[in-house]
């Protein structure tokens, strides 16, 4: 079956960023997202995920390359100075290219 090249953008951020990040994804044109709680450690110290308020979220979104660029730009400009978070993009192949 034919596959299409897309970007998988992964964001790991403190739970408080949930609302704004999902708003951003929607406004940038993502057609879906996947999310789950994670524990982590980084420049912002440890996030032991013992309390919902102190947990991290990993948010994954499959998007077209141009959307991924927009998202990375806006994350870097608006979100990184504000929240403890990282983001990275990777190449993936999907079926049904028009879905994303």
């Amino acid at each position, binding site marked *: 079956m034919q596959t299409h090249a897309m970007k998988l953008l992964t964001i790991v951020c*403190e739970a*408080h960023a949930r*609302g*704004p990040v999902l*708003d*951003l994804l929607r406004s940038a044109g993502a057609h879906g997202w996947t999310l789950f*709680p994670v524990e982590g450690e980084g420049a*912002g*110290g*440890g996030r*032991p*995920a*013992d*309390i*919902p*308020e102190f*947990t991290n979220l990993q948010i994954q979104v499959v998007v077209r390359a141009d959307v991924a660029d927009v998202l990375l730009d806006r994350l870097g*400009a*608006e*979100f990184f*100075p*504000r*929240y403890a978070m990282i983001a990275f993009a990777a190449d993936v192949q999907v079926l049904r290219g028009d879905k994303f």
Partner: protein
Amino acid sequence: MTLLDAVQANLLSPAVLFFALGVFAAVVRSDLRFPEPLYAGLTIYLLVAIGFKGGVALAEAGLARVWLPALAAMALGALIPFWTYPVLRRVGRLAAVDAAAIAAHYGSVSAVTFIAATNYLQAVGQPYESYASAFLAVMESPAILVGVVLGRLASPRAAGVAPSPGGDASLRAVVHEALCGRSVLLLVGSLVVGVLCGPAGMAKVEPFFVTPFQGVLALFLLEMGLVAGRRLGDLRKVGAFLLAFGMLVPLVNGALGVWVGQATGLGLGGATLLGVLAASASYIAAPAAIRVSLPDANPTLYLTASLAITFPFNLTLGIPYCHALARWLYA
């Protein structure tokens, strides 16, 4: 009972001892963990139980007796940032935004400290007004709003170091959080449910929400000990000023609260609880709101102060202190 006796009785209660056990487990790096859903479940139980109980008491007492102290409690919470902020700025030499954030935490309240105080009063046989949960419910938000406004006025950059995602939406988000945030909603909601059900409803759910309550609190404080203990390492990062601040401010605010309680007609127990509320610092609702609306404020400062200093201080010493003060005032 002298203050010393009271402190000792408090220190030997299951609740405080389990808290100490939790701190110990965190310090020796035990692999003991309460999974996050368990924490969430215990919190929901405690807030619903205390809110519901307060609502039933409110239905029995009638609004007439509650509105004045409740209003005074709100005002007290909203005003606390106005004296703590300058202290944090001048004495502590903290950045404006950090001072505002911390002031917001100390004006707001800690539900678990309040619950532990009701527990303490029961143990020493001190009657109290059960509808005091209503004061807990109304004191959570006002100081947070005041703190956020203080922080934005004092350091306009705080409002937008970077173009805010959603523009002015973030102030709206604070208000939404203040009214519909998890803990406020559970408390106020269960209070209203309790008012509507009254004693007949209480009879049905008492074996779940009242009888085992103290035991659940003990278990929950074990977890809170773990949570606080994990952050003890941050004490070094916050410096001596915040350490002193986190233990002296509760003494002052506690006295204010007890006095306001007496002035507005509460009994000895109720005044003690109002003192404890004023003395306590939020570590759930306030951090959540501040993180979103004053993102420049340093979480290590406000979290460590409220969670790793003031919370254990109140749990062990602050509660008997407020009670002793009230007994002295009412003597």
